[in-house]
């Protein structure tokens, strides 16, 4: 097997593993579909935007939870945003954590919120790592002259 094919295989396997582990869901695959010749970096752009958004939201939430009097409404809206973003991108685990986070917010459980936030942060970093690996694989394939295989 030549290098390109190998890389492609690697890419597909990696992707499938992400999928299997529940890191990403169908939505991520859908995003892949939207990438074509006219928008070659679509997925990368979206994901980058997502990470920026994530970071910003997490920081805001941390600050809000640090306050003496926690404005749960504020926190809740941030979580809602994060949930929306993650579900758009297909970051399943993050999304699920957000759902849990929201219940804590509604319960006005500061500890629960803080814990959730921590988890979200961890998950976000984990996802970032994984996706960066994926993108690197993509670049390698492209550099080798191959094309990104479409994930059915």
């Amino acid at each position, binding site marked *: 097997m030549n290098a390109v094919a190998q890389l492609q295989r690697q890419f597909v396997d990696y992707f499938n593993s992400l999928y299997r582990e529940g890191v990403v869901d169908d939505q991520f695959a859908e995003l892949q579909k*939207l990438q074509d010749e006219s928008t070659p970096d679509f997925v990368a752009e979206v994901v980058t935007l997502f990470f920026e958004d994530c970071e910003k939201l997490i920081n805001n939430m941390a600050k809000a939870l640090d306050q003496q009097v926690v404005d749960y409404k504020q926190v809740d809206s941030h979580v809602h945003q994060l949930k*929306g973003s993650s579900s758009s991108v297909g970051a399943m685990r993050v999304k699920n954590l957000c759902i849990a986070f929201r219940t804590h917010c509604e319960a006005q459980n500061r500890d629960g919120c803080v814990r959730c936030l921590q988890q979200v942060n961890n998950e976000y970093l984990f996802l970032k790592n994984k996706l960066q690996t994926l993108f690197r694989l993509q670049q390698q394939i492209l550099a080798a002259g191959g094309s990104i295989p479409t994930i059915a």
Partner: protein
Amino acid sequence: MESCNCIEPQWPADELLMKYQYISDFFIALAYFSIPLELIYFVKKSAVFPYRWVLVQFGAFIVLCGATHLISLWTFSVHSKTVEAVMTTAKVLTAAVSCATALMLVHIIPDLLSVKNRERFLKNKAAELDREMGLIRTQEETGRHVRMLTHEIRSTLDRHTILKTTLVELGRTLALEECALWMPTRTGIELQLSYTLRQQNPVGYTVPIHHPVINQVFSGNRAVKISPNCPVARLRPLSGKYMQGEVVAVRVPLLHLNNFQINDWPELSTKSYALMVLMLPSDSARRWHVHELELVEVVADQVAVALSHAAILEESMRARDLLMEQNVALDLARREAETAIRARNDFLAVMNHEMRTPMHAIIALSSLLQETELTPEQRLMVETILKSSNLLATLINDVLDLSRLEDGSLQLDIETFNVHATFTEVLNLIKPIASVKKLLITLNLAPELPEFAVGDEKRLMQTILNVVGNAVKFSKEGSISITAFVAKGETLRDPQAPDFFPVSSNNHFYLRVQVKDSGAGISPQDIPKLFTKFTQTQSTATRNSGGSGLGLAICKRFVNLMEGHIWIESEGLGKGCTAIFIVKLAFPERSNESRLPFIPKGHVNQGLTSFPGLKVLVMDDNGVSRMVTKGLLVHLGCDVTPVSSSDECLHVVSQDHKVVFMDVCVPSMDGYELAVRIHEKFTKRHERPLIVALTGNTDKLTKEACMRVGMDGVILKPVSVDKMRSVLTDLLEHRVLFEAI
């Protein structure tokens, strides 16, 4: 005292004479004194008297005279000097005054005389004015009479009444002895006595019209005095009176409807007149006065007008009656025609069924019979029976179709069909026969011919089949080529038929089919007969081919119904012929096609794979999901404008945006409010973009809320490409989509 020189009165001798003188003087004095008194008295009584000064003078003169005479009374006896002196004074004064008066009178008397003159003059004037007043009064009375007469005459529209009334009123006004009206007879050469005043039933007197007197009367519109001996004036038996009254005749124009011009009163163009004769009472010394003649003339005119009105009324009544009759007749005819048509249709319908059933039985059973064991003769017989019955069946069908086509009750069944498939089917039907005859059939469909079209497929096929069938029938060998293409410009016209001028439009196209065969051909003089019912060309080659001759006639009818044209071209016998027809078909289209520029025409069944250029708006405050949604829509080919807030959305949204996708996951009611605002902004439905909500939950509340604010659809996130595609398809087709999970 000295004695005066007067004669001493000797009482006894001249006493009498003296006494008389004495008394006369006394009376003279008395008179002299009383005259001024009277004068003064009467002048005072009278209102005006211009000569007071004269009067005074006169008075003075008279008084002094009286005084003189009075004083002379004293002179009869011895009198003193005083008396003498007084007497002298009086006389001197009297003399002075009387001279003055005499001088004055010279001036005054001419004046007095001229007063008299003026008085005479004024009297004359007064007499003249009286005369004129009398004249005016007469005229006014005449006018009144005319008005009254006119009113009477015009108050009725009945000819007879008009004329009778005229005579009566004239007779009354002018106090006539007799008044008669002579009307021209139908022949126009005689005048007949129609109406008289006194006699109740005028005898049918006639007088020839070309009498000099009558001509004279007819030549002018004045009332003319005629001699009582004139035939028209001999109305009453001579009653032996001394002198017959004066007779006057005037013409009465009899106007017809077509004599009325707008601007000019009918003049001598009217040819027929009636004659009105008026007779004054016999033994009165009356004469016709000018004003009376004028009255008569005016009345004659008025009568003419009234008669014409009556004539018009009669005419219009008659016309109306005529029309009513015609209406009734037409109505009856229409009903009869309808009944006839209904009867014919019923007959056809019954016969249709009645004829087809036995035919069907014959054909079916003959076919079955063919399948059984038969001797060759029997087989031949059965085949002949089948052929004949098939022919008969075709004939029946054709006749029934044609009769329906004839009265225009046939309507095309318009629907979408596959053009290519139609031709293929025809080919399949004709191939067996063609191969038996070893004819080569080629079908050539132009590439730009639409695959689908809207028209009457059955009848189009029937036409093509008939034409191709004819080609096969009349060709013994060779090939037949069928060509079909979209006709434009030159190919849209038949050079032989200049009045077939179709106009192309965006929704229709003209299909041109040419069937060329290499068969027997047709001679040019036979070509026009081809499309006539039941005719067949007489050439021996064709006589055996059978057929009713109806086929082309029916084809022509069908082609005409499809707003087309069919004709045959042939170069002559033995040179084959080409049958060409053009029919109008429509492009298939969807209902809101005009609104959706991105749907290519004619590709209805392929589904919509992309929406090139569809302008949409995406509102989402979440950057990531906004980007994802945008990417999704861009992938489908839309022109996406992303906005991040509802204010921005309202600012940017315009008529060009066909759909607005808005995220309503936000806890605030922003999305719903936005929908309301969009509705407010675009009041007309076709201007408003469709509003679709993207939401994470499709519970009933969300859906209801969306519907309440007037959204056109709800989509559950996350959205896949396929889902978005089908959503857009549905949305744009139906303009509403309620729920896409």
